[in-house]
């Protein structure tokens, strides 16, 4: 088990290296480098040369990449082209906001998807089953950004009970209630897809478990249906969910990004979108790599958690 853990973790390193080379190469292929954008339309050739020397983009690509990699290993992610300050500082201001949004969304999704899934699995009443399957399908089919716009329209524009975006009301930056009010909209929107996907998963997984012999035994012993469900069935039914959550890294990162744009939430996703239009390569690389690390970490945790929660699976 320990050897597996080490091997899996070590395998993540070349994966991330390949991702970084790929992205770096892509940025090199981009027509119209950052120097041209920052120099403006009136710049002469010597201005361009001076600016690209300043940004470090005059070096050959492999040199630039190795320089970047060397810096990253020493904790130096370079200087933002746009803000002219260290990328680490720019990111440090944004990353906690994204983590906050993701954590809130995952918490909401987890708290709601399990009860929803259980109810739709044990209910024998047809309308409930129909409603549950339609609601779950709606949840995975509605585009996140449109749901966000509709939440803004209903709760901010019409009902005026939620703020219309951003992270805090001016002057109330440290008020926890104000922060939670701002978080409710984007976190619920981001959570919707996962509530739907996970409750469907819980439902089918629970239905499978409920047909097994040990459940019949538990019922035959005279245990109440509630005990059978919570103590016997649910435990095994929730195992696969652990893996599913871990595998969601890539989609969570993308979903958070677009939610941040709609709700003007100052996180990494919005930073990446801004860095893209301003050709701020150091920030772009850093934001992208952090997203890739989150994704790989999710996959890794999913793998490990699976062996840990289910002793039947022996990893080799």
């Amino acid at each position, binding site marked *: 088990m320990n050897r597996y853990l080490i091997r899996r973790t070590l395998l993540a390193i070349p*994966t*991330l290296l*390949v*991702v970084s080379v*790929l*992205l770096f190469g*892509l*940025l090199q*292929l*981009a*027509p119209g480098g950052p120097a041209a954008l920052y120099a403006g339309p009136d710049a002469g050739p010597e201005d361009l040369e001076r600016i690209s020397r300043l940004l470090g983009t005059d070096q050959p690509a492999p040199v630039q990449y190795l320089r970047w990699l060397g810096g990253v290993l020493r904790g130096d992610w370079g200087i933002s082209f746009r803000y002219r300050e260290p990328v680490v500082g720019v990111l440090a201001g944004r990353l906690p906001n994204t983590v906050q949004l993701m954590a809130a969304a995952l918490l909401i999704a987890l708290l709601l998807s399990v009860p929803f899934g259980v109810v739709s699995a044990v209910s024998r009443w047809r309308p409930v089953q129909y409603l549950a*399957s*339609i609601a779950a*399908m*709606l949840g*995975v*089919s*509605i*585009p*996140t*950004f*449109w749901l966000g*716009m*509709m939440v*803004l*329209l209903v709760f901010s*524009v019409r009902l005026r009970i939620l703020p219309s975006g951003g992270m805090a009301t001016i002057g109330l930056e440290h008020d926890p209630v104000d922060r939670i009010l701002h978080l409710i909209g984007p976190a619920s929107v981001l959570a919707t897809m996962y509530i739907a996907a996970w409750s469907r998963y819980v439902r089918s997984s629970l239905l499978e478990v409920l047909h097994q012999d040990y459940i019949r035994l538990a019922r035959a012993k005279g245990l109440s249906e509630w005990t059978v469900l919570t103590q016997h069935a649910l435990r095994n039914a929730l195992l696969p969910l652990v893996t599913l959550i871990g595998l969601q*890294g*890539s*989609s969570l*990162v*993308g979903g958070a*990004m*677009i939610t941040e*744009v709609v709700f003007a939430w100052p996180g990494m*996703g919005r930073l*990446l*979108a801004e860095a*893209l*239009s301003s050709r701020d390569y150091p920030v*772009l690389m850093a*934001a*992208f790599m952090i*997203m*890739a690390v989150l*994704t*790989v970490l999710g*996959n890794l945790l999913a793998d490990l958690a699976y062996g840990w929660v289910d002793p039947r699976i022996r990893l080799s």
Partner: protein
Amino acid sequence: MPAVTQNQTEKAIKLRKTLTPAGRAWRTFRRHHLALASAFTLALLVLASALAPVISSYDPDAASLNILAPPSPEHPLGTDDVGRDLLSRLLHAGRISLSVGFGAAVLTVVIGVLVGAPAGYYGGRLDALLSGLINVMLAIPILPLALVLSSFVQTNLTFVIFIIGGLSWPAVARIMRAEFLSLREREFVDAARVLGAGSGRIIFIHILPNTLAPIIVAATLQVANAILLESALSFLGYGVQPPQASWGNMLQDAQRYLRTVPELAIYPGALISLTVISINFLGDGLREALDPRLQV
């Protein structure tokens, strides 16, 4: 009682009639009411988009001075911020969004099969290499990468299809690898090999047709994914470029009018949702109909 006897005879005949696999699949599919309704809705959406010029005579890109007009007999859904007929734009945007969805799904499945099939069939080093590639691709967040790619050039329809297809295939490749991994051990493959069939023949003529059910289901769900991804890209301004309308880029413009003319935001999003949910239910029905393991 002759009526009863006749009834019983009919029943007996019905029971004796054996169903073809396609017939059995259709019987299961028909019972999935939501899937059936979805197939109908989808057909309607495709038809409406295809007949866009017939249904609405306005040029979807022609601006006019009649801006943000409320619904009227001339403009059944009103006009947008530069005076273009909203109904006409929605229908033409449907063409774009649906073409991207189907085009990208076909590309996704083709690449997925071309990568997944040899990985599962040959195994060994080739599998290690291709699986490595699949895993690297799965580690890249798709939406940000698609944004980076499409920010480089003036995107057009084909480019958007290639970006979405080129990034979505790993999920299909993984399914195909697993299918080939298990099917290559079957007796019919041994039989084909004994008869002297080459690898290419075994892969394409013997194994591939047996993976048709998972391919159809995966392709259906990929259409839904591609439509969602295209709308997100276009919404952020990096997908289908205006003035060409897609449901996604219509929503980008609509953001500014959320307070005053929310209809501009409601219609395109509702159409995306309706299309995607129909495709997903269709996929659900197809899975139940085509997967013999699920059949009772």
